[in-house]
């Protein structure tokens, strides 16, 4: 087996050095009843060629986003990632290193995490960010928990514009610790309803902008209302590129930002791995979940970086930790950092404008189709339309024509009664030809 360096001779010599007769001697502690002789019922060792063929066949049965006109979004976006990004993250020294617990020989990882934290803080307009969480949805859950720790209140008010999967993932976790959630009805402009629900028991208000219907909102007033009530404002962002064009959550008064960073540097990957961005106000640092990198000096006074404030974490605090999280999205974080370093402010703003431009073009094209009603008035790169037929049917019909037309809102929330709503996203990869193809095919199937 190509990954196993020991030869039969090595094994014999080593058993002799140990003083064991056979390998079975080393498994004596396993109760006899649980010892398995022979091999489990699965195929035997396979060469690279065989594995490539088997997995290649599976891969071949999927329709890759880059090969067709593509308009899916709803929390995962197809962007172009520079070749440099994927090259660097595959370097042995990044790919095959561990959590940087020994900072003297892990400055590579620690420094890029520090750069990442700074980039995320600046992008979100917040003073500090952590070194990432699993994804945007679990970041939202951690945000709500953190808000309850900070405010010592027990209720989260969640806008109806937040991605239903984010709400579900959050409720799973926060309900477990007894936090109450009040989820407002889904609506394209759901944020308008939030302020009225804030009460003295509200730990936090959670809003998303652009929301799941694409609506971009200035949440400054919601922040003011939350703060007036002693609650925190959590802003969720599922499309990180939007912050290159839209006012940052920090500027609008967010206390905590939970965002999905997949759009920068990371592929669609059928939903994971992604990278959760998490930023907050400075005074909340010690209540933050997850890994943090900080600056310090070494014994010679040279600048260096270390993981810090680990007294919040499970490996030190055990059952008193701020979260049970033990990893971050290391390599996805690196991809984010490199892509963002390449973009810079100039590139990010331009990228954001190109996304917006493509979405506006798409909107204009679809709006011209009889029977299609555009629902979202102000959006970044995604908007909702109402169709005269169930959206999932339409999407399937278009998939047969090799067009991936978007995400039916009903797929995210079957019970919402909005089965005729389709979420349509466009990015810098969307061409005029893609839009024209979508337009004519959609007109045909309606």
């Amino acid at each position, binding site marked *: 087996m190509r990954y196993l360096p020991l030869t039969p001779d090595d094994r014999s010599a080593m058993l002799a050095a*140990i003083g064991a007769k056979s390998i079975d001697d080393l498994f004596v502690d396993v109760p006899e009843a649980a010892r398995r002789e022979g091999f489990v019922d699965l195929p035997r060792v396979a060469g690279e060629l065989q594995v490539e063929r088997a997995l290649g066949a599976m891969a071949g049965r999927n329709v890759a986003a880059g090969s067709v006109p593509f308009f899916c979004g709803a929390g995962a976006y197809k962007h172009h990632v520079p070749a440099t990004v994927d090259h*660097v993250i595959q370097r042995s020294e990044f790919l095959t290193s*561990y*959590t940087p617990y020994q900072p003297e020989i892990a400055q590579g990882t620690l420094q890029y995490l520090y750069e990442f934290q700074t980039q995320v803080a*600046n992008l979100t307009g917040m003073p500090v960010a952590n070194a990432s969480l699993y994804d945007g949805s679990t970041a939202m859950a951690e945000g709500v928990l953190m808000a309850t720790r900070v405010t010592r209140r027990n209720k989260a008010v969640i806008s109806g514009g937040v991605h239903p999967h984010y709400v579900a993932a959050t409720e799973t976790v926060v309900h477990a610790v007894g936090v109450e959630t009040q989820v407002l009805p889904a609506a394209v402009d759901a944020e308008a309803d939030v302020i009225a629900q804030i009460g003295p028991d509200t730990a936090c208000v959670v809003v998303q902008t652009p929301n799941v219907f694409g609506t971009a909102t200035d949440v400054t007033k919601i922040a003011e209302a939350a703060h007036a009530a002693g609650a925190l404002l959590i802003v969720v962002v599922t499309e990180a590129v939007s912050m290159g064009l839209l006012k940052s959550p920090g500027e609008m008064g967010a206390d905590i930002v939970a965002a999905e960073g997949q759009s920068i540097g990371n592929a669609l990957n059928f939903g994971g791995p992604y990278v959760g961005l998490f930023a907050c106000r400075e005074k909340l640092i010690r209540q933050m979940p997850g890994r943090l990198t900080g600056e310090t000096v070494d014994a010679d006074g*040279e600048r260096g970086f270390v993981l810090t404030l680990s007294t919040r974490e499970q490996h030190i605090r055990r059952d008193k930790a701020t979260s049970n999280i033990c990893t971050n999205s290391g390599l996805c974080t690196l991809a984010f950092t490199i892509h963002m370093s390449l973009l810079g402010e100039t590139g990010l703003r331009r990228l954001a404008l190109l996304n917006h431009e493509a979405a506006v073009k798409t909107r204009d094209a679809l709006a011209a189709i009889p029977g299609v009603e555009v629902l979202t008035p102000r959006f970044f790169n995604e908007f909702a339309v109402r169709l005269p037929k169930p959206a999932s049917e339409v999407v399937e019909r278009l998939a047969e024509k090799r067009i991936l037309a978007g995400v039916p809102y009903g797929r995210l929330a079957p019970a919402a009664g909005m089965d005729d709503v389709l979420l349509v996203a466009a990015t810098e990869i969307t061409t005029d030809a893609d839009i024209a193809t979508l337009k004519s095919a959609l007109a045909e199937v309606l």
Partner: protein
Amino acid sequence: QDEHLIFESDGWGKTGVDLPEPKADGSDLGDLVRRDPIGLPGLSEPEAMRHYVRLSQKNHAIDLAIYPLGSCTMKHNPRLNEKMARLPGFSDIHPLQPQSTVQGALELMDQLAHWLKTLTGMPAVALSPKAGAHGELCGLMAIRAAHRAAGHGLRSDKPRNKVLVPTSAHGTNPATAAFVGYQVVEIAQTEDGRVDIKDLEAKLGDDVAAIMVTNPNTCGLFERDILEISRLTHEAGAYFYCDGANFNAIVGRVRPGDLGVDAMHINLHKTFSTPHGGGGPGAGPVVLSEALAPFAPAPWVVSGEDGFRLEEFAEGEAAQAFGRLCAFHGQMGMYVRALSYMMSHGSDGLRQVAEDAVLNANYIKARLSDLMSAAFPEGPCMHEALFDDEWLKGTDVTTLDFAKAMIDEGFHPMTMYFPLVVHGAMLIEPTETESKQELDRFIEAMRALAQAAKAGDVERFKGAPFHAPLRRLDETRAARQPVLRWTAPEGSNIAAE
């Protein structure tokens, strides 16, 4: 050689990405548009490449030398797996595409599930947990849901509100149990490093929801009484959660299902070699017993006549589950890598993995035990060899010092001060992908260091590392005055926040 931060480059206003000139200016968004500088430097591609390549050379990596972190399992990461994960048919598909356009992806998830279930002897698996700790959460929530369904929820009259955890457990175990509302009760450990059955028996009762046992445990030992432990647990009406971090030591030889396990997460990076990537991303699928299977979270794949289907919302009995753990379907990129690894090894190769991992660890233990004090000298260890600091007594060298001196020899230190039950613990896990030649090189270096420590060459240890990109770092200062981000020096004209 100091490598400046990107914020200290001259990249303000530059970009390393060529994009067409946008026609949109965002004026249709009015007030919503961001006006202030964001504070993101840009680097041309050559500068970015050089910056990150230089940084990378400051890291240790498994591709450079043995990385003997006990309990972390740093093994070879095959590049075939990286190649497979990058096939556009896997990497370039959207989680919410029509299912008819992702049949191959669903098949892959189904196949992965099949391998995991077969290897563990368990009937069900929840794939979506995004890391080991997330898997623990998933498992405990399934247990909680099962108890609730049986009338023993936390707020019921007869609540099962305790989780028993051995002292030697990973920190995530008590953290997770507490997280989902359980009271954590420690179980004592015997002198030979196993769960104290007497203590367990005493603490089991109708208020206990579950035990969480790592097996092989964090001392690198197999729990000899594991069948007794699971019997007692089940008799008490509790569930047996197994921390699967060390499944790599027994894969192909022992099926957790045969041990009476009800739920176990599998760290795909530890047993199935998905790359650690400097701390993630991980993936922590959870296998479940018949009793817990109905309480798995959405989504899951079912295979039918007309292909594969992803169930995204629980219906019927499954609606008793607790919902979903994350936005989409989990770590697809890791599924591909793990399946590629499993298919490569096959059932024969995977059994060999466990055997070689255990053989390598015992070899290290045997070759070092004359100089260093094995924490549990009697009997074989499993995949990792545990030493304490008894042998350093009187040398003025601590476990930490010793670890830092290993850096100067070109090795990554072993895990230290864990598990907590052993004083000055040094936990060495070579994994199965180390050759005898590399093990011997490592052992010789360790022996030389141990002799130096005993010979009183204290400065070699106290000052270490001397030959690393940096000397020892001041972690206290970092925590006392946290500096968590770069900020422009005062008086600079950088257009950042």
